[in-house]
């Protein structure tokens, strides 16, 4: 929208000035609404970022709990394949069905489950919020500058004495004024589109959470609190189900005892037991078909369990989480947590693993494949050789690694030595194995 100059034609000075005053008000009004719009956009984008972080975190927790229990069973060939297809890709499915298979695990309220379904939408919003166009619009407030300039021109004209002068000045600046208003309008249009989009998304998310009736600030606070509660509840569940797994793997307790100590339903213990049995079969080298035959589960369920077992093996063997996740089609958070949770389990066996002793027996105990343990063993031996001053090229060749890869270990060794020195200085080095496991280093370095 440009400025319509025809209205000025033939006007007397006072009328002209009045017209200009209106135009000035209009421009200033636009400037104010631009500033307000900017503020609203910033707020909306901030809200979206907060919401996305919370929801993504909840989904991560769900994914990590899901791999501790048995995946959903078959209830019809098509349904089952659909269900398992959605196992990791559809968080709502995971929350409502995947975990529903093990009664008592899911503690999420319906609004939270609904919100979890918003993850892709939220991801899109965050992407939008971080796009260069948005950042540019939000950073400089170009529209304000353009309008400021247009207002200055009008003010200059208002201050002139005669209609003759005013017209002369406006005629000179007509093109400039029109350009400034046009550009400002374009900026405002983009900004307002972005704001509408962002605000609409925030509103619909809050409405889905059942918070649509609250004032915005309150609704946001409730949203965050709701998600924090979900995170807390899920994390507590995760700790409990992990303990169930530990106790099941230990093998000396009854399902009822485990259930009462951990405070979960016995069905959860059964589901975990079933899964552990399948994992044991898979780790010992049985095929999916064999494992399915020995258990009451169908192939699709075993394949799903197999994925996590493989992810764990690769994580322990030291493969980067992102590539493992991509290769096996499991969430990165699962690969990461499988690595983090299972490495400490190896603490009592660390010395043996380094020397590559009894790997089969250890494998059976910790449910990590002997092959993965052998690869870990090779890494520890390489690191020990490097630490002892061996040539990086020779170390690399002996274990089939590039010099660059070995070079990274050299850096890690130097870092580990510093950390150990600090621990020793502060008299905090108590358990050698624990520190060695934490640093993923051979015992000789920690000594």
């Amino acid at each position: 929208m440009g400025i319509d100059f025809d209205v000025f034609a033939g006007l007397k000075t006072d009328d002209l000035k009045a017209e200009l005053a209106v135009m000035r008000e209009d421009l200033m009004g636009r400037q104010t609404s631009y500033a307000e719009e900017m503020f609203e956009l910033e707020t909306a984008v901030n809200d979206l970022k907060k919401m996305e972080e919370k929801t993504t975190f909840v989904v991560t927790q769900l994914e990590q709990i899901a791999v501790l229990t048995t995946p959903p069973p078959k209830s019809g060939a098509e349904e089952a394949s659909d269900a398992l297809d959605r196992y990791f890709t559809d968080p709502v499915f995971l929350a409502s069905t995947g975990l529903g298979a093990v009664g008592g695990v899911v503690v999420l309220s319906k609004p939270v489950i609904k919100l979890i379904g918003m993850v892709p939408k939220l991801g899109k919003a965050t992407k939008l919020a971080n796009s260069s166009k948005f950042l540019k619009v939000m950073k400089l407030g170009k529209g304000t500058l353009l309008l400021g300039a247009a207002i200055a021109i009008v003010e200059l004209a208002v201050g002139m004495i005669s209609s003759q002068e005013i017209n002369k000045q406006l005629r000179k600046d007509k093109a400039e004024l029109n350009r400034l208003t046009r550009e400002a309008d374009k900026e405002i249009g983009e900004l307002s589109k972005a704001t509408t989009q962002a605000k609409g998304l925030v509103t619909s998310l809050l409405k889905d959470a059942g918070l649509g009736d609250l004032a915005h600030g309150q609704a946001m606070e409730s949203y965050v609190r709701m998600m924090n509660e979900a995170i807390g509840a899920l994390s507590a569940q995760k700790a409990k189900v992990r303990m169930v797994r530990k106790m099941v793997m230990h093998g000396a307790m009854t399902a009822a005892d485990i259930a009462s100590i951990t405070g979960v339903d016995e069905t959860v213990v059964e589901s975990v037991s079933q899964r552990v049995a399948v994992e044991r079969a898979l780790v010992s080298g049985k095929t999916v078909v064999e494992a399915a035959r020995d258990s009451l589960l169908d192939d699709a369920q075993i394949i799903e369990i197999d994925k996590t077992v493989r992810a764990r093996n690769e994580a322990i063997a030291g493969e980067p989480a992102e590539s493992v996740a991509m290769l096996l089609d499991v969430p990165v958070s699962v690969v990461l947590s499988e690595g983090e949770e299972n490495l400490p389990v190896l603490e009592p066996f660390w010395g043996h693993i380094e020397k590559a002793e009894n790997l089969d027996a250890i494998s059976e105990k910790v449910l990590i494949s002997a092959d993965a343990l052998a690869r870990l063993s090779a890494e520890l031996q390489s690191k020990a050789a490097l630490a002892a001053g061996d040539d990086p090229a020779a170390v690399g060749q002996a274990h089939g690694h590039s010099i660059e890869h070995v070079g990274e270990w050299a850096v890690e060794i130097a870092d580990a030595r510093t950390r150990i020195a600090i621990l020793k200085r502060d008299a905090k080095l108590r358990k050698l194995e624990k520190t060695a496991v934490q640093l993923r280093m051979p015992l000789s370095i920690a000594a």
Partner: protein
Amino acid sequence: MSFFKDVGNFFSKEIPKFVTETVPSVFEKETYAPDLVEGRKEVERLKKAVEASRDRFFEEQAQLAKAQSRFENLTEQFANAGLSVDTSRFTVSPSLIKELSESQRTVRDIMQAYRTVTNVMSLGLTELIYIHADIKEERETLKRQIKILKGTRSRFDQGTDQLIRVRKAIEAETVRAVEALKAAGIEDSVSAVSELTAAEAQVAARQQMAARLLGIGTEISAITDLIGFSETELAAIHPILPEEETSPEAIDRLMTEEEKAILQEANG
């Protein structure tokens, strides 16, 4: 052109500008007043300087807004999360709040002033000054413009300095808040509150399970193995000595009614 009737033959009154600046001519006033050339140059230079100052001011405004929202995000989320973190160190000092509101007023004032002085800046109006027929008139105009431009520039610069001061203060507060987090063993990240909520819930769940195990007389070493707490951690959570852990008082303290029933049943 019909709508600018009033303009009429005004242009004919102007002195034609057909001679270049480099060749002084008897027709040009510059020949008699070379200071005008210098003055115009000074005005042009100052206009550029004002624009640069203005852009720095806007840039700083954005920086300040960023620093402010970072601090608010950091503190607000911890203050409302109901965690065991001491949030008293996250409160902003009253003097900083005062400085912040003062800086906001400065921004408003400067914007207001800027609008009234932009008429001497390069907004397609630059030729305006060249149409002064009179040497004295142009000289005065130039003098006035230089004064206004200098004033505007220094206002922008002072405003920028003020904003920088406030931003530095906020950033210092942010560093203090981050250090307070670090002292509490918390990493400063967008998901810090989520991580912490998760960690505290897990510890609480493990404490609960440890307490139950203690309650049914499990050996301390077995508990530390299973739960992953060290003996000192375990003792710190529930300072129960092994000999009294199966006392009725301990069981009463540690177990729910349901669990007590289960235990009773188990003991026959």
